[in-house]
C-alpha cells in the first residue's frame, strides 16, 4: 500500500473520530460566542432585545467612555472588575499555599494511603456544590456554628461579621477549588525525580537553595496549570458570591447574570462577558506560548 493512501486513510479515521465533537463544539460553543461578540457591539433596546446599530459604549460604560446621551460613566463596574480579579488571584494563592505542601506530604505516603488521600480529595465532588455552600452559611452566619461556639466559650460578646463579606467569598472559593489546584500540582510533584534533589544537596546546596533552584522549577508546570484551572472559573464565578457574598460582594459573574436576567441589557452583559474572556484568553496565550517555547528549546537529540 502506498504511503499516500495510508496517510489518506489515517486522515479519514481521524476525521471520523474527531468529526462529531468538532461539529458539536462549532455549533454549541462557537455559535453562542459569535452571537455574544456581535451583541456586545449593539445598542440595548428600550424594553430588552437589541437595536441593530453599532454601539461601542457598552465597553465605554466599563472602561470610561460612556454614551454621553443616556449615561454618565460609573466606575462601579471597573471596581467590580478589579475586585473579581483580586478575589480570583487571592483564591489561587491560598489554594496553592494549601495544596503545594500537601502534595509533597501525600506523594511520600505508601501506595495504599496515597490512594486513600486522593480519594478524600475528590470526595467533595460527590455532593452538590449548592448544598456544600449552604453548609458554610450554617457555619458562618451570626447564629451559626462558629459564633455560637465562641460565645458559649465566652471569647466574644458580639457575633463576628463573617458571612456576606469578601472573606467569606474567598473562603468559599478556596473550599471549592482546592481539588482543582491539588490534582495538577500533585501530578508534577509525583513526577519529581528525588535523585535530582540529592544531586543538588551533593553539590553543596542547602534546603532552601535546592527548593528554589531545583524543586520549584521542576514542579512549576503543575503550579501554572493548577493556577489557570482555578483562576478562570474563580474570575467568572457567580454561585459562591451569590450564596456567601450578599449584595456588597458582587463579582463579575453576578453582574453579568444581573444584566442578562434582571436588567435585560444583553449587549452590556455581553460586553462584560467579552472582557472576562479577553483576560482569560490573554493569560492562556501567555501560558501556552511559554509552554511551547520550553519544548522548542529542546528538540530531541539527533
Amino acid at each position: 500500500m502506498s504511503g499516500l493512501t495510508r496517510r489518506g486513510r489515517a486522515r479519514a479515521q481521524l476525521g471520523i473520530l474527531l468529526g462529531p465533537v468538532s461539529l458539536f463544539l462549532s455549533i454549541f460553543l462557537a455559535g453562542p460566542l459569535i452571537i455574544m461578540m456581535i451583541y456586545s457591539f449593539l445598542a440595548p433596546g428600550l424594553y430588552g432585545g437589541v437595536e441593530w446599530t453599532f454601539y461601542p459604549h457598552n465597553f465605554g460604560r466599563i472602561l470610561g467612555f460612556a454614551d454621553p446621551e443616556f449615561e454618565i460613566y460609573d466606575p462601579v463596574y471597573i471596581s467590580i472588575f478589579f475586585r473579581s480579579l483580586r478575589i480570583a488571584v487571592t483564591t489561587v494563592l491560598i489554594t496553592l499555599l494549601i495544596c503545594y505542601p500537601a502534595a509533597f506530604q501525600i506523594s511520600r505516603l505508601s501506595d495504599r494511603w496515597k490512594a486513600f488521600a486522593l480519594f478524600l480529595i475528590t470526595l467533595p465532588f460527590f455532593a452538590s456544590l449548592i448544598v456544600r455552600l449552604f453548609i458554610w452559611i450554617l457555619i458562618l452566619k451570626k447564629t451559626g456554628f462558629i459564633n455560637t461556639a465562641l460565645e458559649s466559650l465566652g471569647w466574644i460578646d458580639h457575633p463576628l461579621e463573617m458571612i456576606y463579606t469578601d472573606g467569606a467569598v474567598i473562603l468559599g472559593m478556596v473550599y471549592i477549588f482546592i481539588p482543582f489546584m491539588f490534582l495538577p500540582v500533585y501530578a508534577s510533584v509525583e513526577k519529581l525525580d528525588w535523585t535530582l534533589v540529592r544531586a543538588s544537596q551533593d553539590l553543596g546546596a542547602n534546603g532552601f537553595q535546592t527548593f528554589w533552584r531545583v524543586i520549584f522549577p521542576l514542579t512549576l508546570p503543575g503550579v501554572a496549570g493548577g493556577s489557570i484551572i482555578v483562576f478562570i472559573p474563580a474570575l467568572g464565578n457567580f454561585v459562591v458570591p451569590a450564596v456567601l457574598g450578599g449584595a456588597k460582594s458582587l463579582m463579575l459573574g453576578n453582574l453579568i447574570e444581573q444584566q442578562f436576567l434582571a436588567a435585560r441589557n444583553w449587549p452590556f452583559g455581553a460586553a462584560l462577558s467579552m472582557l472576562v474572556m479577553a483576560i482569560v484568553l490573554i493569560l492562556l496565550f501567555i501560558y501556552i506560548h511559554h509552554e511551547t517555547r520550553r519544548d522548542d528549546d529542546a528538540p530531541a537529540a539527533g
Partner: protein
Amino acid sequence: MGESIVRLEKVRKTFPLPEGGTVTALGNINLDVARNEFLTLLGPSGCGKTTLLHSISGFVQLNSGCVYVDGEDVTDRPPHRRPVNTVFQNYALFPHMTVGNNVGYALDIAGARRAERNTQVGAALDMVGLGGLEKRLPRQLSGGQQQRVALARAIIARPKLLLLDEPLSALDRNLRQSMQIELKTLQAELGISFIFVTHDQEEALTMSNRVAVLEGGKIQQIDAPLAIYNKPSNEFVASFIGASNLFRGTIENGTVTTDDGDKIRTSASTGTGPITALLRPEQFSIANGGEIAAETGRLDVSIRQIVFSGAGYEIHGRTDNHHDVVASIAATHQALVAGAEASRKATLTYDPAAVHLIATEGARS
C-alpha cells in the same frame, strides 16, 4: 590519619524491613582510602556497596560508627556540607538547566564570580571533551555525553573525593570500555581519590588501585586487583571474581584430596586439614600426548562442551569423580582442542605452584 582521605570506623547501618525486623546493610565496616587512590567497591546487588557510598556522601544516617574525610569528622554533617561530590547512576542532570548551568551549579551555589565561573565551566567541559556545548539541554545529549556532563559537574568544585555510583552501567559495552580508560586518565589528571561502585568485576579489575569486595554488608577482601584475582581470601571472592574451579577437600603432603576423590597437587609442603584449592581456567594447559613431567599436576576429564570465545577455547569438562572443570586454552592449541573434541577426552595440566589454597570456612555453606 594524614595519609588517608577517607576513613570509616566501625560503620554500621541497618534498615527496617516492611514485614518487621531489620536487615544489616553495613556491619561494622572499617575502611581507609588513600590520597589519589582509585578504590572500587565491588559486590552483587544488595551487598551494601551503595549504602557504603551514601554513608560517605551523607545520604544515609549511620546507626553507629564514624566517617572522616581528610581528617575531619563528618559523621553528623548533612550532604551539602561534605567536601565530596557524586556522579549518580542515572546521571541526575537537572533537566530544566542547560549543560553550562548544570556544570556550574556548585559554583553558583557557592556564589562564584560570573566571569570566573564561566571560565571554569568551559574548562571542566573541555576536560570531558564537551567544550562548547554549554547552551544545550541535557535531553539533547546522548547517554555518553550526559555521563560526561555529570562528571564535569561533579569535579568542577574540586572535591577532595569523587564518588561514582555505577556511573557506566547504562552505557553500551564499547562506550563503557572507552569511558573506563578516560575515567582512569581523568583521575590521574585531577589528582583526587575516586571511590567507584560497580557490580561488574571486569570494570573493577581494569580501573582500580584497590578493589574492596563486599558481600552481606561486610568487606570480604580489600586488595590490589591482581591479588584479588590470584589470591582470593575466601570462596565468595574466588567465585565472584572471574571463573574459578574450586576443589574442596583435605590437604596432606601437599596434595588436596577432594570429597569426590580428585587429587590436586600443590606446592605447599606442610599443613593438614580441610582446605579449598582454586585453579583459574587459564592456569590449565592441554596435554599434547607426550610425557608429562612428574612434578606437573594433571587432571583427566571427559569433554562436555567446547566453546570458542575468540581469544581461545573454553573446555567444559568433568572429572571421573563428577567434578565440573572449566579450562581456557589459547587458540594456538587448536589442533589439540580438535583432538580432544574428537576423542571426548582430554588431559589438563597445571603448575602446582599456581594452585591457590583457601582456608575452608566452617561457618560458610
